[in-house]
């Protein structure tokens, strides 16, 4: 499936990236090259192969990761907001949505 520059603009939109014309052009040709490279996987017949799910080992898959539903400490409002670019009155402030 060759990927063209129209696709690239759409992909940028989906990825929330505001790319300029020059970037769209460079990425367009580089990503086309990479996509052409990965197409080599089509040489393999995988009709009867189960897709791998994550990198889990059999032991990792068996490990029980559930825990009791108990109240534990948390960061708290002040610390959670300490690194925010624009905190306001205990909230994360963002530009207008509509």
């Amino acid at each position, binding site marked *: *499936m060759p*990927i063209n520059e129209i*696709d*690239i603009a759409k*992909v*940028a939109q*989906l*990825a*929330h*990236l*505001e*790319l300029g014309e020059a*970037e769209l052009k460079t*990425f367009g040709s*580089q*990503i086309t*090259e*990479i*996509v052409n*490279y*990965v197409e*080599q*996987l*089509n040489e*393999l017949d*995988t009709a009867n*192969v*189960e*897709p*791998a*799910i*994550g*990198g*889990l*080992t*059999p*032991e*990792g898959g*068996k*490990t*029980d*990761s559930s*825990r009791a539903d108990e109240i534990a400490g948390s*960061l708290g409002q002040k*610390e*959670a907001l*300490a*690194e*925010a*670019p*624009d905190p306001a009155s205990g909230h*994360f402030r*963002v*530009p*207008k*949505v509509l």
Partner: protein
Amino acid sequence: MSRQTVEFAVTAAERLNESLNAFLQIDREGAVKRAEETEKNRDQRVLAGVPVAVKDNICVRGMQASCGSHILGDYHPPYNATVIERLVNAGAVIIGKTNCDEFAMGSSNENSAFGPVRNPWETTRVPGGSSGGSAAAVAAGIVPVALGSDTGGSVRQPAALCGVLGLKPTYGRNSRYGLVAFASSLDQIGIFAREVKDVARVLGVIAGPDPRDSTTADVPVPDYAATLDGNLKGVRIGFPASLFGKGLDEEVGRAVKDVVDVYRELGAEIVEVELPNAGYAIAVYYIIATAEASSNLARFDGVRYGFRAEETPELRQMYRKTREEGFGPEVKRRIMLGTYVLSAGYYDAYYRKAQQVRTLIKNDFLNAFKNCDAIITPTTPTPAFALGEKVDDPLAMYLNDIYTVTANLAGIPGLSVPCGLSSERLPIGFQLLGPYWSEPTLLKLSHGFLKVQPFTERPPVSA
């Protein structure tokens, strides 16, 4: 003693940073204070007073975590990663945060927003990536141990290029809590050191299940140091001849074949193994890793932490401009590629197909390990290349990881071991791969080799 050791490390880190750019933050005050406490309390814990450097994508409370990116800039996480909590509880002293490719994406460290790290063996060469700062810091003798992260070879590849040991443990061996996620099904925190016993000691401290990372496994943590007995009689080492062909630098190939001869002399049995699908690993990796990255990096949106672009009166525009200005080119390229392979209509053709071939690669290893205890390969196709040599050709850069990505896809452990210098005096490393939880075997094999062929050379830029 410990104050002296830590002060030496901090001073060396500061002094060599001009030539290496290995550290993004050095915490002299905090490190010296902790070293003084270690002395005062006559601390006897396993890592008491040991200076450690940490890659800047692992959270240390009170320090920055930029991930080599402008989008996080001087972000200071309010908590410790689990591995940091364990290191500190064992007495280790974190002296600083090391430079890396942005969000751990790269094989040369040239993708750091804060300038590349330079190789202490030759400062016009790359140190490898993405954990280049940690590798350089250990190679230059600044610290005995450093942490990195390995998603496709980001610990083992720079370890080989800088002439130190680099371990990527089994997936689930240690916790990823507090490691900024790149590709969650591949990421694993790894260890750099110059001595096998230091890798063993640190792994013993950081390994084990963690309720904060559900992918960690409840598998017993052995006494790794106890396995370093030097007895390699009867250990079966797999030799995949097909990986020693096209694309491999002649000197590297010869050096690794010499290692095989050393193992034979030490009493190990060398058996031929086949990894028929290894050639597809890079293609599989760049689908899965970018798909996971596009999803993981969606969280960087200028709302809760890090950088926000200015003059954006509307929310969606704020997201787009923040990400456009905050991310570097390689990160954007991978987010784009990942978004593309996951987009409607393409998911089956790329992502599902890649996960199927991942199964084949995993099965290749499971089959090979029926006949051997470990597999030997080169770690990298060539020694350290020149800064700037591959920056304009992403695909050529990706092919640096050809020997290392398979371990991440299969979830198995891998260890890079230094085995000599090229004619240009650049380090060469070989890689040992083993079945799940076989870290003791890999450490034992590296220890046995380094006992008869120690790597004692020091780089020109050295503490």
